[in-house]
């Protein structure tokens, strides 16, 4: 807190105390995944999840299951929940079930935090497409039930597009042309901003271009964060920034929100959950926005990556793995559950949920778009299968954030930032003891 009187000489040591309080042996709670034999009386489960509608879903579950009562806690967004779960797992008091973003799963598995629930989930495997199911299953082990998915789409302010008489870009080449057009027609406005810290977004764009950031074979990893397609994507955005066609600045800050509300940010290449996020900051623009397929590198192509999305996992600490698995399955396959999900604008991972969207109203921000769910379904069907994340995504994310922020600030190439990130990731993996190919 800067130069404030309350600090004592030992406050720095206090940090160490804090660290200590959150850590204990690593092997806490082994093998709790075994099915429990005939549990008696109601079981109480702890469940961590963020996002709208989770409380309602949990209440509906509790109503339908008198023998399993679930307590819901919002432990913060995807990154926060993941880090808290790791620490809680080490302390031996992790919740029974939690939501986790797909990209954090490998790190959790390596930390030994998750229970293999393949035995309990065999009956719901068919409720998901193989691509979606592969997001939570690794080598036959199943570490979670997919909850929602975020196929990437182009979220744009249709009203402003119409005002400026511009068309939705179909390719990234057109995107650059439209960006230049916007600058010419309204000097205050930008087609989009490039947010240096958006790791997941950039990863998705790189995957769309054909990059593969992590691959593993026989416990030997290949890291491709600075590979050809990634560098190509970095150079593309570099070009847009250098020509002043997009503004490089952090997302969802008071500054960005204010520009968006003024109609100066015309689009956000993000994912299906984007409309829900924007509604939270620009309620007044409800009905003005729409979604379209994400621009492509090659015309006529339709591949997109997933950005974000989450699964419900069962922690190894849980003494009620059976009940927790039942909960995870119900939350992601039952009609009551996915109806609540759809109403909040989340795109369900389960097939039945995805089909149910066609009869639903679009989310409030895009309420003017009749074919919202059709566009969404098309994006969901065009996702790239077998995306592989690494065991240290959080390290990669933090390295990426700092490197790209520095690149934007110092006007050094983004491709150099990718190389730095790659180096940090490889160094971290090697110091932990992973075998990394070609390094």
């Amino acid at each position, binding site marked *: 807190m800067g130069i404030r009187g309350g600090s004592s000489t030992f406050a720095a040591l206090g940090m160490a105390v804090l660290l200590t309080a959150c850590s204990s042996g690593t092997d806490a709670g082994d093998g709790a995944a075994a099915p429990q034999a005939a549990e008696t009386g109601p079981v109480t489960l702890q469940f961590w999840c963020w996002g709208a509608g989770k409380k309602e879903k949990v209440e509906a579950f509790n109503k339908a299951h008198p023998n399993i009562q679930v307590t819901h806690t919002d432990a913060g967004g995807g990154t926060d929940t993941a*880090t808290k779960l790791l620490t809680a797992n080490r302390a031996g008091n992790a919740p029974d079930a939690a939501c986790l973003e797909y990209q954090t799963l490998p790190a959790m598995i390596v930390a030994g935090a998750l229970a293999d629930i393949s035995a309990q989930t065999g009956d719901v495997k068919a409720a998901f497409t193989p691509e979606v199911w592969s997001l939570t299953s690794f080598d036959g082990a199943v570490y979670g039930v997919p909850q929602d998915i975020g196929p990437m789409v182009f979220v744009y302010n249709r009203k402003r597009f119409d005002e400026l008489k511009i068309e939705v870009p179909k390719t990234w080449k057109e995107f650059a042309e439209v960006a230049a057009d916007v600058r010419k027609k309204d000097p205050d406005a930008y087609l989009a901003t490039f947010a240096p810290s958006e790791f997941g977004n950039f990863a998705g764009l790189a995957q769309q271009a054909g990059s593969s950031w992590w691959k593993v074979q026989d416990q030997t990893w290949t890291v491709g964060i600075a590979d050809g397609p990634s560098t190509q994507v970095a150079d593309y955005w570099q070009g847009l920034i250098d020509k002043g066609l997009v503004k490089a600045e952090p997302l969802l800050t008071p500054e960005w929100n204010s520009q968006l509300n003024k109609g100066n940010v015309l689009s956000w290449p993000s994912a299906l959950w984007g409309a829900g996020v924007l509604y939270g900051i620009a309620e007044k623009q409800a009905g003005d926005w729409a979604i379209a397929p994400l621009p492509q590198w090659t015309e006529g192509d339709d591949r997109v990556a997933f950005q974000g999305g989450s699964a419900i996992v069962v922690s190894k600490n849980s003494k009620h793995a059976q009940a927790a698995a039942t909960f995870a399955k119900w939350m992601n396959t039952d009609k009551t559950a996915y109806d609540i999900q759809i109403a909040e604008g989340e795109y369900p991972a389960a097939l039945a949920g995805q089909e149910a969207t066609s009869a639903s109203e679009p989310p409030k921000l895009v309420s003017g778009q009749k074919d919202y769910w059709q566009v969404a379904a098309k994006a969901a069907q065009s996702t790239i299968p077998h995306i592989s994340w690494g065991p240290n995504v959080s390290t990669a994310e933090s390295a990426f954030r700092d490197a790209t922020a520095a690149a934007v600030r110092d006007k050094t190439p983004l491709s150099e930032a990718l190389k730095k990130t790659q180096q940090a990731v490889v160094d971290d993996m090697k110091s932990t003891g992973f075998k990394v190919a070609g390094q």
Partner: protein
Amino acid sequence: MTRRTGARRGTRAPYLFVAPAVLLFLAFLAIPIAYAVYLSVRGLRLTGGGIFGTRQEVFVGLDNYVRTLTDPEFLAGFGRLALYGLIAVPLTLGLALLFALLLDYAGSRGRRFARTAIFLPYAIPGVTASLLWGFMYLPSTSPFSYLTRELGLGEIPFLGSGAIYPSLANIAIWGGVGFNMIIIYTSLRGIPAELSDAARIDGASEWRIAWHVKIPLVAPALVLTGLFALIGTLQVYGEPTTLKPMTTEISQTWVPLMHIYRDAFTRDDLPLASAASVILAVGTLVVSVVLLKVTQKRAFGGMS
């Protein structure tokens, strides 16, 4: 008889009285610190088992210390702290001393109001203060940038590369002046009135009285506030962390404590963070002791 019980009580009572403090010290300071030191020589390394392998805690010696001390980013954090401290510490103490002297000046009016007004920012939590200033720094929400824009001078880049240090220091100064002023002011009130009166009779101006009588007499308070300010600077965390999402200038490892937080909770490497914490704590202790030793003679030796 009475002598014996007295003697016995004399041997036991001190331990009894000191026991609560010692127990609390052991439970909440000594043992956790010892555990942090223990943790700092451990490391999470991959062992077999599982499809990707599992990370287990093993002994790694001084590896974490070597990694911390050879990490240019960690050391650069201290450089940034120094730059920040060079702006924040002298200004905070200088302004605090100035305000304290003005309040102490017999002729000043509205003293009670001024004292409360200057102290008030200290009562505002650091995170709230940072957010408040953050909004005043961002171009779209800043009243200052609004004015300069209306005057055709463009926006003020408060969160740009050059201005980030003064901008951050400003938050600390705004919040810290009041507290430091109260300490110095209390110390000023403790000076016997005869001393100033005597100087005044000798024909000294208010400036000379302040410079030659008051300031030397409040030197212990200045050393104390200086020490607080120095330690506070080494522990800067809240303000840059709160402003981080608003600007690309502040990285996740901008200051040492942020670096430690990132290692512990973003990179899930508690041992590495423990090693860095130990280094920071020892460093803080050394700097504090040196500062006290250097200033002790002048500050505390002179008057008593």
